[in-house]
């Protein structure tokens, strides 16, 4: 029982790191980037290539995936995304669906359609006995990394100068600009960091999530559920939503496998019915 709970938490933490970039672009910049999963996929595939083809250590792959996806995100943000900030939500959705299609086909072209398997380093394999539950070392590692990331993010947003500037830019972009804050630059950096986090999540998750070209479509739905359940105005909302979702999904699949994805979809719709106003307050009021 504890093992299932633990797996759920690990899955949830992973979801959070994957989705948090989307929270930022969606909630803070009011941009619907359905293609967020494509960055996660890029991170995952980079890890696979580095690890399996070049024999780079898994621990080095993680920062590499972060940096790679952050740069990728920054380039795309400057060249393409920036044109869509002031367009309608529908245009943004179509645009990101186009990106998803292109990324799926590109990955398919270079890597093939089959699922990719990574060989985790021996130090991350095996299980530990912990409080009477058997715990996978890899999942413990995931929880630790994701936990550190969450704390760092929360700190950066709440305590640093960049964080306060970002919050100012989000609350009222025009006034922030008037006060001499370079809003465009802040958004670009934020987008890059969000993409980088997705890449890191993708790299971390190669052992838990299944990595094949339709990854962005499959996990897009999960990300959206995290966002819709947790809201986009805070970091903590999506965090708890991810944990809840992870635990619900894992326990649901364990105890009632015949229901499959029902659990999480039902949670999503139930939350949307019960708290429709609380979810996208910021999106609706702007």
């Amino acid at each position, binding site marked *: 029982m504890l093992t299932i709970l633990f797996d759920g938490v690990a899955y949830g933490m992973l979801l959070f790191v994957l989705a948090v970039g989307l929270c930022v672009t969606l909630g803070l910049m009011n941009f619907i980037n359905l293609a967020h999963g494509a960055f996660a996929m890029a991170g995952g595939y980079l890890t696979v290539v580095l690890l399996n083809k070049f024999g780079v250590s898994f621990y080095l792959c993680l920062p590499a995936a972060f940096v790679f996806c952050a740069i990728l995100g920054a380039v795309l943000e400057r060249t*393409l995304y920036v044109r869509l900030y002031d367009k309608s939500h529908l245009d943004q959705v*179509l645009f990101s669906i186009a990106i998803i299609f292109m990324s*799926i086909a590109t990955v398919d072209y270079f890597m093939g359609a089959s699922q990719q398997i990574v060989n985790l380093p021996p130090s991350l394999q095996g299980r530990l006995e912990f409080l009477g539950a058997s715990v996978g070392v890899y999942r413990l590692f995931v929880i630790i990394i994701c936990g550190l990331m969450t704390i760092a993010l929360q700190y950066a947003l709440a305590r640093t100068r960049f964080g306060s500037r970002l919050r100012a830019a989000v609350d009222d972009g025009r006034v922030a600009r008037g006060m001499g804050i370079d809003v465009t630059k802040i958004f670009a950096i934020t987008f890059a960091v969000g993409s980088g986090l997705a890449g890191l999540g993708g790299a971390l998750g190669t052992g838990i999530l299944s990595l094949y070209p339709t990854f962005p479509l499959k996990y897009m739905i999960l990300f959206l559920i995290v966002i819709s359940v947790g809201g986009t105005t805070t970091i903590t909302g999506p965090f708890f939503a991810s944990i809840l979702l992870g635990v619900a999904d894992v326990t649901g699949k364990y105890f009632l496998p015949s229901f499959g*994805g029902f659990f999480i979809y039902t949670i999503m719709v139930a939350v949307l019915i019960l708290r429709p*106003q609380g*979810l996208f307050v910021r999106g609706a009021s702007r």
Partner: protein
Amino acid sequence: MSAVDVKAPANGATARLSLLAGARWRWYEIAFWIVVPSLYFLAPTKLTLLSEILILGLLALSIDLVLGFAGIVTLGQGGFFGLGAYAAALMAKWGAGTAPLSDPLLGLAVAAGVAGIAGFLTSFLVLRGSDLTRLMVTLGLALIVDETANKMKWLTGGSDGLQGVLPAPVLGVWDFDLYGRVAFCYALAVLFVLFLVARQITKSPFGLSLQAIKGNPLRARTIGMPVNARLVAIYTIGAMFAGVAGGLLAQTTQFASPDMVAFHRSADALLILIFGGAGYLYGGLIGAGVFRVMQDILSNITPQYWQFWLGLVLLMLVLFVRGGILGLLRATRDRFFPPSSDKAAP
């Protein structure tokens, strides 16, 4: 004071005249409905593909009603499509190919009814919140339908699909043949009738009020329009249209599977509409043709990677072209023949 009183009836008459003028058939509309049936003779070997295009066009039309005219962003029309498909398929299956229960038109009516009820019930969820919430709720609902179809094996056959769908002959006379002749004519007839209905809806005062709501919901509310009731109505109608489209697909392919509900169905239909141009009624139909033909050609050149080119075209459309193919045509026409009045419709 008196000037207003004298003018008021005149205004009413003008409004009626302008409504009637907007509803007049134009030469290109007539040409369109001559060209499409003539494809039966021009491309007799491609009838299966053509029926599929017609059905996709109908699905895109249903999204056009909801999105292009009323401005409700939806990613879940595939859910209603799938409900309709399963409803019609099950009717045909239970009737085992004999008249009363397996009658295709009855099947379509049931499909429309089931999808319409689902649309009506879910419309209240969809009305809440912003574009974003709507996208999510519609997507979530379609996913639930998808998952239900997958899991209710005893009813739907699960992921293997529903076999043994045998619709009775259309109107008791024309049986579905291998070459898709009857299927094409049947789909075309249904599409045409529903198109007329959709056209009537959008040209009516009701349709105009929807466009007003799309333009500015707050203002529409303040001049006394029952905004929510109107949106519920059009969403339900859109769901029924999508249900009929699904029913048509199930009947003409004699099959129903969770693939008909899947996310890509909703996304494709939305893309088709955007390709063609939203808010013109014809956008979905033309978009469906262009989309399927393009898909056919591209997947012949690069069997696996045509999605890349699809994505690229879509990207270009979003970035550089407003309003899809029809929007492009209209912009070209306006450039060379500047419109004499503002009412140069579609």
